[in-house]
């Protein structure tokens, strides 16, 4: 059967069969890089189009509908425009940091792709600290944002970057604690183990109310971490023009824009892996027929379906809720999310020790 697992194994075997191990490894690096970059550009086009369509329909509008059938090539046209545009560097800017920042943000988003399992047996790097790797690397992206804000030599940019720093540092806590709930239940940081532990049911169904609370906290925290509305203090169009990327133009702006959407995809992929069973199909108890039909749907479709569902939920938030003030934002984290997720973690631990989950 044609599946991602078989294709990747076949390529792997062929490479090691026809070249020396070192050459084969390097060739695999190149292949993976090409795959990740093409996935990136594809995701960027799809997610931005999806955002525009979702926002339009939620605001009783039509959205892009002129370029290509049903406006499907709108983002392609936008990208072409951005490539052709001039990438300016302001006079007073710190040239090195200014030009480095978008690439740092982008590279970190790329690194985050490593531990994810996109389909059954299809993974770049099955590292035994997958979830830790994710939380550790994703918090570096704030450095790229701070760099951009500082190097722009612009008040708005600096303010946006500082807000973004405060926000990401505080929301990392509750995101981490809600991820920890699943780690406690699974007993492993390896992504493949976490997915394997959900074979007989996703954690959101098996883990009773505490895991649902952890899921809600996770979604809120990652919305804040990716600087999305209603937590888009870092950009806040009405106050800071565009926050940390005010001074960027052309392709460097496009990189920031792309990284934002890739980050949304990545955190949603993590949410889908931890709470919704990754590529595991939906199984309901003893309904054998139903379970068999679900098994026929390819695992990659399950994974991307769940991820895009979560992306849709985050877009739904963005186009429904008004932006929070910075003090309200920090209140929400330190007075509500953090205490709730701490108590919740205790409950989950109790549940895991006493074996109350299914």
């Amino acid at each position, binding site marked *: 059967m044609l599946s991602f697992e078989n294709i990747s194994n076949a390529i792997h075997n062929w490479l090691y069969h026809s070249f020396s191990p070192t050459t084969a490894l390097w060739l695999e690096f190149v292949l993976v890089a090409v795959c990740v970059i093409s996935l990136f550009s594809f995701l960027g086009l799809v997610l931005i189009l999806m955002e525009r369509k*979702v926002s339009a*329909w*939620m*605001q*009783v*509008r*039509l959205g892009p509908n002129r370029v290509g059938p049903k406006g499907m090539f709108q983002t392609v046209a936008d990208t072409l425009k951005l490539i052709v545009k001039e990438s300016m560097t302001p006079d007073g800017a710190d040239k090195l940091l200014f030009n480095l920042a978008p690439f740092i943000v982008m590279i970190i988003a790329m690194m985050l792709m490593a531990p994810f399992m996109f389909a059954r047996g299809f993974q770049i790097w099955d590292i035994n600290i997958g979830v830790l790797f994710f939380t550790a690397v994703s918090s570096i992206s704030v450095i790229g944002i701070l760099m951009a804000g500082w190097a722009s030599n612009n008040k708005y940019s600096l303010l946006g970057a500082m807000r973004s720093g405060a926000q990401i540092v505080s929301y990392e806590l509750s995101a981490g604690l809600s991820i920890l709930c699943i780690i406690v239940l699974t007993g492993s940081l390896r992504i493949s183990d976490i997915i394997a532990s959900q074979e007989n049911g996703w954690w959101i169904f098996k883990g009773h109310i505490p895991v649902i609370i952890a899921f809600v906290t996770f979604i809120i925290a990652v919305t804040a971490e990716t600087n999305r509305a209603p937590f888009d203090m870092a950009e806040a169009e009405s106050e800071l023009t565009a926050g940390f990327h005010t001074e960027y133009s052309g392709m460097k702006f496009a990189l920031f824009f792309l990284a934002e959407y890739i980050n949304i995809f990545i955190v949603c992929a993590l949410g889908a892996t931890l709470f919704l069973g990754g590529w595991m199909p939906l199984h309901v108890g003893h309904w054998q027929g139903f379970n068999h039909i679900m098994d026929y749907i390819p695992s990659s479709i399950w994974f991307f379906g769940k991820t895009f569902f979560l992306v849709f939920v985050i877009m*739904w*938030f963005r*186009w*429904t*809720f008004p932006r929070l003030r910075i003090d309200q934002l920090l209140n929400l984290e330190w007075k*509500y999310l953090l205490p*709730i997720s701490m108590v919740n973690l205790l409950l989950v631990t109790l549940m895991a020790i006493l074996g109350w989950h299914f």
Partner: protein
Amino acid sequence: MSFLGKYISNVFGAIRSLWKGMKLTGYYFTHHKEIITQQYPDNKDTLLLPERFRGEVVMPHDENNEHACTGCTACELACPNGTIKIITKFDIAPDGRKKKAIDTFVYHLELCTMCNLCIEACPTDAIKMAQTFEHSVFDRNELTKKLNKPGSRIREGIE
């Protein structure tokens, strides 16, 4: 324990109100019939404008070429930027009395902001807002309009 109860009811109240908002946007997301966007140049023939759309001021005339304007200049006084200028004359009524009537109702479309104040000020409903909006012309003299048709008279019984 009352602070804990307040805390928990705060959280639930927040979730409920957020869900209320998400329900509305979710409704619009799934019901595309509610979309109000007009694809203007494409649907020029079937264009559906809202009833209260304000395009320009017009003066309706009936089939006898009669209008309802008494020339009271209430609209001219109400207009914030001098869009309307009414030139009055004196008609001789059948019983020999002199009667004030309009000679010309001058309307400067280029000055008008479609604020609707003149229509609200009019005591006899002689003017109203039309739904036309394609106003661009090559000569700006064309934007100065005479709203009363030539030879028109005031309708009987309107004071």
